[in-house]
């Protein structure tokens, strides 16, 4: 998989990127499974209700578990370049200027995520040390709150990989882009939608 003609930094990045992807894929798989579980759980709740049985604490359980699909796989989407942004100016940029803009974007992200990790960790810590629970069945909330700094830490790692990737391209714009999401042109976007439609069974 790894091209021998890449520069050393490029090879290191490509390798790290690949190994890191396994972790991110796993987080997204967990999220997918949780959504499926939510579907089953909600369906069962309605069936039970038809028979007059009420599942006490449904809301509490949903609220504690939903962090798994709301936050956990945030790095996965960052790797794919899937977080919403406006690319009007970026698509007009070429070469060094483009990589400079991307690099700066990476630094901004590193800064704010770097602030958020310890501060969301302290949010967990308060719940853990002082106590916190849901309303009805008094589930402890700290495990859910701990997921946030973990997810953000994984995101931080991904941002480091990407930012180094952009820095490499800023220095050597002619090198092959490695470990960074390339901007999808509108044509690419349309093509990926088309590919989606292709999988449509007939």
């Amino acid at each position, binding site marked *: 998989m790894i091209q021998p003609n890449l520069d050393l930094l490029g090879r290191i990045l490509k390798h790290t990127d690949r190994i890191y992807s396994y972790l991110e894929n796993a987080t997204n798989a967990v999220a997918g499974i949780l959504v499926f579980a939510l579907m089953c759980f909600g369906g069962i709740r309605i069936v039970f209700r038809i028979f007059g049985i*009420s599942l006490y604490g449904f809301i509490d359980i949903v609220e504690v578990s939903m962090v798994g699909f709301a936050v956990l796989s945030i790095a996965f989407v960052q790797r794919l370049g899937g977080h919403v942004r406006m690319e009007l100016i970026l698509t007009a940029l070429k070469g060094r200027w483009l990589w400079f803009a991307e690099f700066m974007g990476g630094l901004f992200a590193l800064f704010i995520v770097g602030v958020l990790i310890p501060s969301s960790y302290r949010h967990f810590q308060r719940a853990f040390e002082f106590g916190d629970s849901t309303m009805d069945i008094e589930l402890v909330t700290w495990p859910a709150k701990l997921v946030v700094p973990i997810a953000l830490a994984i995101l931080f790692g991904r941002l480091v990989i990407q930012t180094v990737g952009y820095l490499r391209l800023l220095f050597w714009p002619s090198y092959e882009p490695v470990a960074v999401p390339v901007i999808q042109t509108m044509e690419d976007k349309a093509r990926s939608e088309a590919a989606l439609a292709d999988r449509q069974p007939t």
Partner: protein
Amino acid sequence: QTQSSESITIVDGPKLRWDISLWGTTRPGTRVVDVLSEQVKQHTDGNWEIKLHYGEALSKSRENLDGISIGAFDGAMICNFYHPKKNPGLMVLSLPFLPIDSWDDHVKVRKVVYGHEQIKKEMAKWGAQIYSTSYLPMYEVMGKGKPPRTVADWKALNVRAGGGIGEVLAKIGATPTSTTATEVYTGVQQGTMDAAAFPFTYAHVSYRIHEVSDWFTSNFSPGTADCPVVLSTRSYDKLPSQYQELLERLEPIIAEQQRLAYEQVDSENLPMLREKLTEIEYSDQVVKQIREDYARPVIEEWIEENNKSFDARGLVQLVFEALGHEY
């Protein structure tokens, strides 16, 4: 209109702004903070502005103690049952069927609870201290279908009730269910639940439960909860002493206004409820029986659970004593 202007003495002091975190909109249960803000402004000639941020603009309601802890704002309203484990001791006020029978009882019981070491300690963990409270009224149950005239009638009912009240109802034979307050209306209407326990009368009416109900209890009094106004200790300590004194002086005035606010909604709601719905009243005998046979075991369980972290039994005894009962 809260106090005649003649009696206002102006307190001199520096310009200051406080932020208070609240949820929802202004309502009878928030009279306490509305009056606090008005009175402070009047008494300091506008120098001290207490800004009320409704609608969870500063924090989610269940994270208000966290907000105080991190210095995000100077005060907030909290409800003990929103986060039982954040304030385990304060949950004593949510114990089922406490013998609170009058406004004076409400005041007395809070006084001993707020003065208790455990409560001060658990608030201090969050950097908070209790200033006053909304004196949440006792709950009553309102519902549709066959009214529960006897204890046995409760067996057939699906009731939206949380915490200790839910546990007692379960012991009586009813089925407690949990939903968000705003879902209760359609729940009762559709029959996914038969009845709901809410602070009486104002919460039932503001969630429009009476529109879909046939009956309500008026002396079942299964318990209450506590939604106090807490202040950041850091902010409080930074106040000049004359402002601290002012807060202390205002507390009884605020409490009185809170009482009037509930009285006023009750005077509008009660006749309307009595006209439209069947009022269910229980004999003293029945109420006593429920307190003894069903509520006491739940209170005992709570004591068991908490006695290892603080003197829960002592706290319960103190509460009963303040109410003129023995535990």
